[in-house]
C-alpha cells in the first residue's frame, strides 16, 4: 500500500542529517531515544500552518534538554488514550499542551538521570544534563542520553519532576525552522488531496446549489455511460434521526455520489448528471448539547437572499434585544450626556477559501475503517463515522494529513462521513474530492453580523456610558464581559438573532473577528468626538478598568491590554510621524492573548494601499519567535483581505460567489509592503496566537482609511462600505 512518509525532515538548512539509530528506546508516548542519542519527538496535533509540528516538539525537547539538531519530528497517530486535545482551533494547542509537553520531556530527563545515577552509583541529585549529555561533576563521569536510554525505560515514571525555569530555556524562545519546510518546497505528498492508495477510486458528491433545497430525483443515464465511471447512487450522509454533535454542520445530507477512476472523469460525469431539487419544509434536527443532553433545532424552510437578510437585520436591530449585562444606569447617563455618538457597523457572511479544497480518503471493510485527510477535529470524525456506520470507534483509524489551510472550516467534517459511506457502498478505498466551487457552496460560513453602538460623553469628554446592541444571522457575536465593559460606569449589552437555513461555523477568531473590528472602529470615533488621541483614550479607559473596575466579570487583564498598546505606540513611533501619515490603531483581547496594530495607509491614484503594519502581541512565552511572527504577519494580511474584499452574498438561497474569480481574496500586490511584529517579553505561560491578532486588523485598517480618505469604514467589505 502506498502511504505517507510521516517522518518529518530535519532542520534542512543546518544540513547534517542524523544517523538513524539501530535501536529505539521508547520513554513515553511523546518521545523515544536511539542508542546514538538521536531523539524522536512526536508531533501530536493537527497542522494547518500554525506551526505546531515544530513548536510542540520544541517544548518537549526543551525539558528533555536535548540538542534540537538531534531531534527527528514524527507525526503521532490520532489516539485519545495517549494524547489530549488533538484538535486545531481556538488557539489552544500550545496553551493547553504546555504543561503536558513539558512534563513529557522533564519526566524523560529525570528517568535518564535516575538511570545514570544507578549506573554510576551516585545520588541522582548530583546528576546534571546539558544538550543531551548527562554529567556527574564530582567523578567526572558523563554519558550521552543514548547510552542511558535503554536503562531509563526500566525506571518507574516519576510522579513529580522539576521543570526548567523559563530563564534557562535554550530551545523555547529561539527561532527554529519549520521541520516540514523542505517537504513543502519540494512538493512532497503531505496533504489529503495527495493521498493515493492501492485500488483507490475517486468520488464526488452532487448537492443543491441553493440552501433551502434538497434532493428530489436524479437521472444518471448519461453520466453513468461516461468513461471511467464506476457507480452513481444517492445516499444519506446522516440518518434522519441522528443526534448531531456541534461539528456536524451540514445543510445537505441527501447526496448523489459519482464514483470513478480519476478526478477529471468524475468531474465530467458530475456535469452530465441530471438532478432535480425541491424546497425543504421546516426541518427539525437533534443536536447534542455541550455538557450532555440535547436540543432540537428547527431549520426554517425558504430561499434566503442577502437583501432580505439586510431588511430583517435592520428590523431586529430596531427592537429591544436580550440583555446580557447592565452596569449602573445607562438610560439615565445617556439622557444626561453632553454628547452621544451612535453608529451602526455590519459585516457580511464570509467563506473560508482554504487553499486545499475539501477531500477525504476512506476505506471501509467489514472489520475496519481507515479514514485519512485534512481535519481540525479528528475526534469528531471518528464519533460521527462510528454513529453513521454503527462501527465502534476502536475499529476506526483516523489519520491526519497536513491541511492546506483550515480557518475553522475543517472542524466540520461531514465530508469524512460522506467518504466513509461511499467507500462502504462501493466496497473499495475511495478519495472523496470537492471542486473549488463545491468547497465554497457546501459552505459552513462565517455568519453575517450587525451592531449598533452608542457612547455618551460628559462635558469634560469622559466616557460615561456605553451601549452595544449586536446581532446576526443566525447568532449574535457579542461577548458582554469584554472591554470596554469594566471601564465604564454605565454599560448595557443586548443581543438578538435571526434563524436561517444557511449553515455557519467557526471562522478564524469566531465572533471576535467581528466584535474586534467594530468595537475598535467605534472607539476611534468616540476618541475623535472626545478630542483625544486614540491610544491615550484607550489607555485612560484601561487605567480605569485596572484601578477601579466596574463589575466583577470582566474577562481581560487591563495591564496586559495596555501593555500591547504601549508597545505598539513605541515601536510604530506613534505621535512622532509626519502629519501626512494616515495611521490607524486598534487593540483587542481574545483567545487569551492581547494584540495591537498600527496600520499606515497610502493613497496612490485614488487607491488606498497598506504600506506598513506594526504589531504588538502579548501571548506570554513565545515558543518559536520567527514562526510566531509569521503567523501574526499572516493574520495581518488575512485581516486586511477580509476587511477590504471578503463577502459572500446569497440570491434565492444560492451562494453568489464560488471561486477566486468571483470571491476576492487578497493578493500579493494588495498586501502590506512590510509588517513588523513585536512580542511583549514575559514569563507567563503561553496563550493563543493563531486567532488573537486577526480581529483588530480590520479596525486598525478602518481607522487608517478614515485618515486617508475622510470617510468612516463601517460596513465590510470596505471596497463597498455600504449596507442597503
Amino acid at each position, binding site marked *: 500500500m502506498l502511504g505517507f512518509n510521516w517522518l518529518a525532515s530535519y532542520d*534542512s*538548512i543546518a544540513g547534517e542529517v542524523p544517523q538513524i539509530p539501530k535501536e529505539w528506546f521508547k520513554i513515553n508516548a511523546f518521545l523515544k531515544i536511539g542508542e546514538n542519542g538521536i531523539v524522536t519527538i512526536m508531533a501530536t496535533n493537527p497542522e494547518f*500552518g*500554525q*506551526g505546531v509540528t515544530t513548536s510542540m516538539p520544541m517544548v518537549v525537547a526543551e525539558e528533555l534538554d536535548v540538542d534540537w539538531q538531534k531531534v527527528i519530528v514524527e507525526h503521532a497517530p490520532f489516539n485519545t488514550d495517549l494524547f489530549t486535545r488533538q484538535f486545531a482551533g481556538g488557539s489552544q494547542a500550545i496553551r493547553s499542551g504546555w504543561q503536558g509537553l513539558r512534563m513529557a520531556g522533564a519526566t524523560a530527563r529525570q528517568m535518564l538521570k535516575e538511570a545514570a545515577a544507578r549506573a554510576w552509583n551516585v545520588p541522582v541529585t548530583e546528576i546534571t544534563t546539558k544538550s543531551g549529555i548527562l554529567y556527574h561533576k564530582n567523578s567526572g563521569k558523563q554519558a550521552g542520553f543514548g547510552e542511558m536510554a535503554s536503562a531509563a525505560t526500566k525506571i518507574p515514571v516519576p510522579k513529580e519532576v522539576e521543570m526548567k525555569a523559563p530563564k534557562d530555556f535554550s530551545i523555547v524562545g529561539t527561532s527554529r*525552522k*519549520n521541520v*516540514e*519546510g*523542505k517537504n*513543502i*518546497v*519540494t*512538493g*512532497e*505528498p*503531505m*496533504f489529503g*488531496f*495527495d493521498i*493515493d492508495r492501492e485500488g483507490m477510486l*475517486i468520488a464526488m458528491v452532487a448537492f443543491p446549489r441553493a440552501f433551502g433545497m434538497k434532493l428530489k430525483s436524479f437521472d444518471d443515464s448519461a453520466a453513468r455511460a461516461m*468513461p471511467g465511471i464506476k457507480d452513481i447512487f444517492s445516499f444519506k450522509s446522516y440518518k434522519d434521526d441522528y443526534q448531531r454533535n456541534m461539528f456536524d454542520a451540514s445543510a445537505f445530507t441527501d447526496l448523489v455520489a459519482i464514483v470513478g477512476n*480519476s*478526478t*477529471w*472523469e468524475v468531474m465530467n460525469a458530475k456535469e452530465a448528471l441530471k438532478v432535480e431539487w425541491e424546497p425543504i419544509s421546516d426541518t427539525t434536527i437533534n443536536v447534542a448539547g455541550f455538557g450532555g443532553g440535547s436540543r432540537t433545532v428547527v431549520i426554517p424552510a425558504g430561499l434566503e437572499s442577502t437583501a432580505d437578510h439586510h431588511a430583517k437585520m435592520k428590523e431586529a436591530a430596531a427592537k429591544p434585544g436580550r440583555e446580557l449585562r447592565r452596569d449602573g444606569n445607562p438610560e439615565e447617563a445617556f439622557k444626561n450626556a453632553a454628547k452621544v455618538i451612535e453608529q451602526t457597523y455590519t459585516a457580511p457572511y464570509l467563506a473560508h*477559501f*482554504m*487553499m*486545499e*479544497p475539501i477531500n477525504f480518503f476512506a476505506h471501509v471493510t467489514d472489520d475496519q475503517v481507515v479514514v485519512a485527510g485534512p481535519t481540525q477535529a479528528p475526534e469528531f470524525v471518528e464519533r460521527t463515522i462510528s454513529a453513521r456506520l454503527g462501527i465502534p470507534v476502536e475499529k476506526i483509524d483516523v489519520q491526519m494529513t*497536513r*491541511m*492546506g*489551510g*483550515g*480557518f475553522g472550516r475543517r472542524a466540520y467534517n461531514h465530508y469524512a462521513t460522506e467518504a466513509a459511506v461511499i467507500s462502504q457502498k462501493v466496497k473499495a478505498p475511495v478519495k472523496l474530492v470537492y*471542486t*473549488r466551487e463545491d468547497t465554497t457552496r457546501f459552505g459552513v460560513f462565517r455568519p453575517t453580523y450587525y451592531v449598533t453602538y452608542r457612547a455618551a460623553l460628559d462635558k469634560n469628554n469622559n466616557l460615561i456610558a456605553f451601549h452595544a446592541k449586536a446581532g446576526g444571522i443566525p447568532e449574535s457575536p457579542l461577548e458582554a464581559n469584554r472591554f470596554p465593559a469594566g471601564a465604564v460606569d454605565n454599560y448595557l449589552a443586548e443581543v438578538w438573532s435571526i434563524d436561517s437555513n444557511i449553515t455557519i461555523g467557526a471562522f478564524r477568531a469566531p465572533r471576535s473577528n467581528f466584535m474586534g473590528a467594530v468595537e475598535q472602529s467605534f472607539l476611534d470615533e468616540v476618541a475623535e468626538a472626545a478630542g483625544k488621541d486614540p491610544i491615550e483614550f484607550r489607555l485612560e479607559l484601561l487605567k480605569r478598568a485596572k484601578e477601579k473596575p466596574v463589575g466583577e466579570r470582566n474577562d481581560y487583564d487591563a495591564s496586559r491590554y495596555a501593555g500591547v498598546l504601549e508597545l505598539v505606540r513605541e515601536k510604530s513611533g506613534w505621535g512622532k510621524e509626519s502629519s501626512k501619515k494616515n495611521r490607524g490603531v486598534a487593540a483587542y483581547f481574545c483567545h487569551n492573548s492581547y494584540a495591537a496594530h498600527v496600520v499606515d495607509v497610502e493613497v496612490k491614484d485614488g487607491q488606498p494601499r497598506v504600506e506598513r503594519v506594526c504589531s504588538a502581541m502579548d501571548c506570554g512565552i513565545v515558543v518559536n519567535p520567527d*514562526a510566531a511572527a*509569521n*503567523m501574526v*504577519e*499572516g*493574520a*495581518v*494580511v*488575512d485581516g486586511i*483581505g477580509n476587511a477590504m474584499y471578503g463577502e459572500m452574498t446569497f440570491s434565492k438561497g444560492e451562494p453568489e460567489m464560488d*471561486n*477566486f*474569480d468571483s470571491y476576492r*481574496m*487578497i*493578493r*500579493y*500586490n494588495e*498586501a502590506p509592503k*512590510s509588517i513588523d511584529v513585536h512580542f511583549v517579553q514575559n514569563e507567563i505561560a503561553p496563550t493563543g496566537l493563531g486567532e488573537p491578532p486577526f480581529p483588530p486588523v480590520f479596525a486598525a485598517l478602518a481607522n487608517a482609511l478614515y485618515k486617508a480618505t475622510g470617510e468612516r469604514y463601517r460596513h465590510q467589505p470596505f471596497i463597498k462600505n455600504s449596507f442597503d
Partner: protein
Amino acid sequence: MAKFNLKINRKAYQVDVDPSTPMLWVLREHLKLVGTKYGCGVAQCGACTIHVNGEAVRSCITFVSEVGNKEITTIEGLSEDGDHPVQKAWLEHDVAQCGYCQPGQIMTAVALLKKNPHPTDSEIEEAMSGNICRCGTYTRIKKAIHTAIDSK
C-alpha cells in the same frame, strides 16, 4: 482516450488519457507528481503552476493535447535535492504556513527570475499577483525573492 508522449523533468513519459484532460490531473493522478496542486481549476490561484518551455503556466487549464513535445518542469524537477536558489531562499525565510500554495509560488518566482534576473518590486508584484496565499505569507515571499535575486 489517446496516447501522449510527454517530457517532464527531463524524463520521457507516455500517458493514455482523454485529450481534454488538464495537465494538472495528468501530473497528479497518472504520473503521481502531486507537488502541483489543485486550487481553483480556473487559472485564478496559481497553485497548479508548472513550467512549459520555461514559462510559468497554469496546468489546470492546459490540456494534455496542447503540450506536444515541449519541456515540462514541475516542482519535483526544479532541483535534485530542493536546493534551487529560490527553494533555499524560501527555507531561509521560513515562508510557508500551511504550504499548499508554495510549490506554485516557487514555480512562478523561478520563471520570473529566469526571464528577468533583477526584477523591480513592481515587476515582482505583477508576476506574483496571480498566486494566492490564503495564509498571507506575501511579505515573506517578497523577502525570499529578494534573497534569491541576491544569491545569483
